[in-house]
């Protein structure tokens, strides 16, 4: 597709010449680099509660962000009005970060090569509401039908279609159409008026609506949520202290996101404030661990054709056989440190400054049989599902909270335990990985990552792994 046939030229009449002029305005005060990020976001959500579809909403948000870089300084302004006067005004405000005569000669933009990791013909946002509302109704029915002890169910369906256009003073001109959809289900179960327990499940991706009809149905997520709530009815107090922990495959990959991912973002390392700063080439995990961040996996929630700075995303090796290989770079960090860009510059919206972020972060499969991993543990904890996590990148301490976990006694998974937080230290925790399963699984497409007030969708994945030592925050 030619630029002239893409969304912004068609809808708003924006031309290459306009973009070049805006960039020239942004650089008029002597900035070394400038970029423009146009965004048109349509989104909708539908939710059901008590078997009543109580809420349905849709909306549009559009705007343009202008960034100017001068040395280590960044100027940023945005406008939610795409008229030329307002864009030029934003460009002038952003330009103020620099002081002096213009140094960049004329900008000329070149359309970049295109690929499509999410060839979605009709985005879910573009389908009939009557079809989408069925997803939450089916989820509600399925969760309630799963077991008589389920007394409450909620489901929420979200979708969005983001049209973006990036033009940079380096000459990059790229655009993308980014569909995204997700279905979340929560179930509450109770036994004879006792304490209720909650279970959660959800998933989606950059997919067509048919994904929820053929691949991962509302019934699939509803059954998972209901099953988790029912399992937790029998939970005993979680243990406290250091022990062997086995993580199940898939979403428990959030361990990697918290323990190493954030600490490897280049902004923290350039500033020397990460526990991983200056450790490239050092051993930060056991030899069994190879950790990848890959923004190019088809249809995944964390994938992007180009990052939010117009650079193609890539498959970046973060840790290879336990050795730290590199950081996730954005434009600013790679300009300042000379490192190659990794396609990791992301932002929440046109109103936000991009920074290095993860896409889909996972550990490569090993050779162990998952059943053998469980059998190898005399006493420990098995965690197949988690809630959220958080990290202090400076000390390296991170936590993630088990949503479903079980005791392992004499090599067998036995009783479920109540929710507990697991805590460890980033550069140390993965050194205790002693077995890696052959069952790598990516999560189902539910992750949202927050950093400095900006949220972006991400994915994680991991095979079954055994960690010989980790602190479990229970009470028993």
């Amino acid at each position, binding site marked *: 597709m030619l630029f002239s046939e893409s969304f912004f030229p068609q809808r708003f009449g924006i031309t290459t010449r306009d973009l070049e002029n805006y960039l020239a305005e942004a650089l008029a005060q002597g900035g070394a680099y400038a970029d423009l990020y146009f965004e048109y976001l349509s989104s909708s959500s539908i939710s059901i509660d008590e078997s009543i579809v109580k809420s*349905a*909403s849709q*909306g549009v948000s559009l705007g343009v962000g202008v960034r100017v870089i001068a040395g280590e300084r960044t100027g940023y302004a945005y406008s939610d009005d795409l008229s030329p006067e307002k864009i030029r005004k934003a460009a002038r405000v952003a330009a103020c970060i620099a002081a002096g005569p213009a140094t960049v000669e004329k900008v000329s933009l070149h359309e970049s090569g295109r690929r499509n990791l999410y060839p979605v013909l009709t985005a879910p946002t573009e389908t009939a509401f009557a079809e989408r*509302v069925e997803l939450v109704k089916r989820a509600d029915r399925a969760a309630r039908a799963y077991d008589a002890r389920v007394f409450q169910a909620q489901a929420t369906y979200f979708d969005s279609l983001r049209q973006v256009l990036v033009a940079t003073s380096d000459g990059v001109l790229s655009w993308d159409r980014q569909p995204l959809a997700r279905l979340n289900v929560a179930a509450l179960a109770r036994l004879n008026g006792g304490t209720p327990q909650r279970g959660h499940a959800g998933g989606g991706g950059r997919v067509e609506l048919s994904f929820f009809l053929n691949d991962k149905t509302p019934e699939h997520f509803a059954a998972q949520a209901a099953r988790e709530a029912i399992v937790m009815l029998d939970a005993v107090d979680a243990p406290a202290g250091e022990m062997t922990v086995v993580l199940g495959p898939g979403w428990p990959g959030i361990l990697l996101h918290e323990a190493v991912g954030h600490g490897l973002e280049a902004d923290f390392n350039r500033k020397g404030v990460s526990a991983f700063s200056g450790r490239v080439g050092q051993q930060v995990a056991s030899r069994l661990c190879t950790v990848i961040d890959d923004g190019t996996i088809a249809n995944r929630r964390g994938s992007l054709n180009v990052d939010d700075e117009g650079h193609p995303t890539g498959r970046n090796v973060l840790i290879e056989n336990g050795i730290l290989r590199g950081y996730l770079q954005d434009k600013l960090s790679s300009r300042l440190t000379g490192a190659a860009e990794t396609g990791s510059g992301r932002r929440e919206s046109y109103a936000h400054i991009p920074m290095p972020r993860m896409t889909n972060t996972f550990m490569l499969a090993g050779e162990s049989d998952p059943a053998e991993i469980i059998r190898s543990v005399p006493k420990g904890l098995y965690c197949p599902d988690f809630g959220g996590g958080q990290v202090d990148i*400076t000390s390296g301490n991170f936590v993630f909270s088990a949503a479903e976990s079980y005791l392992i006694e004499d090599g067998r998974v036995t009783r479920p335990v109540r929710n507990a937080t697991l*805590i460890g230290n980033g550069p140390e925790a993965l050194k205790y990985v002693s077995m890696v399963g052959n069952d790598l699984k990516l999560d189902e497409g539910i992750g949202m990552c927050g950093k400095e007030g900006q949220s972006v969708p991400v994915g994680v994945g991991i095979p079954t792994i055994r960690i010989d030592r980790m602190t*479990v925050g229970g*009470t028993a």
Partner: protein
Amino acid sequence: MTGNDYSGLAVEIVRQALAAGATDAECTVSEGDEFSANVRLREVETLKEAGSRAAGLRILRGRHTGSAYTSDLSGDGVRHMVRSAIELADITTEDPHAGLPDSGELGSISGDLGMFCGDVEGLPTELKIDMARRAEDAALRADPRITNSDGASFETHVGRHVFANSRGFAGEYRSSYCSLSTVPVAREGESMERDYWYTASRGFAGLEKPEDVGRIAAARTVRRLGARKVETQKVPVVFEPRTARSLLDNIFDAVHGGAIYRNESFLAGKLGERVASESLTVIDDGTIPGLFGTSPFDDEGVPTRRTVVIEKGVLKSYLLNTYTARKLGLRTTGNASRGLAGNAGVGNGNLYIERGVAPPEQIIAGIRDGFYVTELIGFGVNIVTGDYSRGAVGLWIRGGELAFPVSEVTIAGTLPRMLMDLEAIGSDLEFRGSMAAPTLMVREMTVGGK
């Protein structure tokens, strides 16, 4: 943009919705101007400045709801939003409890609530940068172990909020906010730590001195150096005000009307019962002039008010909007809160724990072995069951004194037990946000470590 008639626009949007077939409608319009300056190692790192505005509409057709929002306030943009909301009412289910507040509930409290201070507008950029620079500089100079910095930031926000509905309510208010924060990084041997401190106010004149912000941030950071992991054990736990506030956040989630009617709170059905130590009184008050949780009306056009949530340990009230109140057969407490899209949720006004009598030093002095918690991380709180397990950082209390820093541990218990076990409440209540708590001491929790 102060010249724009957003009240007129909100009323017009409501009118268009009724003309298009809605039986009721409510519209929010908000505009805001934001500015931020970040300084790192005494140099400007980022400057950001912009303004934005958007509108949201919720309509009813009988007992069916639909909602839409847009940042395109042109005639076409607004018409598209109205059509979208009407269209969505076709797919929602009839809900007998859906609807606007009764006319008698609508209104706005009068008097100057101190939400807007004009001194935030028009501050010279150089002055704003200098505020950040002074705070960071004070931190960098405070101790030789402060070797690095994640910067300092000065931010301002000025906004206008407009709300109108088809029952005749139309109101608006302006608000302003400014804040200054800094994040020093300290190093000693292999140990590297960060912490932060900040000041925030409705007006520029209300900010604390940048030098004080930097000095406190530095002291908080340096005292974390050399932190160790302790043995797993059960001990008294003291929450300093910054972490005590997170317990208030948990209490808020547990008295939230939505969690109550769905039976997903450990406090559901406990109205009138003793749920906490007699020393605990929790109040939500959206009417206190100058504070961050203050407003003349909530996001459904109902006046804000003072609600006693917990009084001397007894649960007195949930926090409710119109919908959750109807579900529970109660009256709204004026706590409706929403963004632009969807139905109103529940939000807090100024939610705080009444101050106790003990100075924090006295609370610590009475503990032989215990844990003084200065930071909590993670999301390990289950409001349904009350199970509590979070990552914690702080100082170990030995012999009544803060003895050494501790990290990479968890604290765990259950919220129902923790509330009953509140043994001391400090006298050091201070409003630094819309939730505020003094130092709190819980008789016993499990510290998970080695």
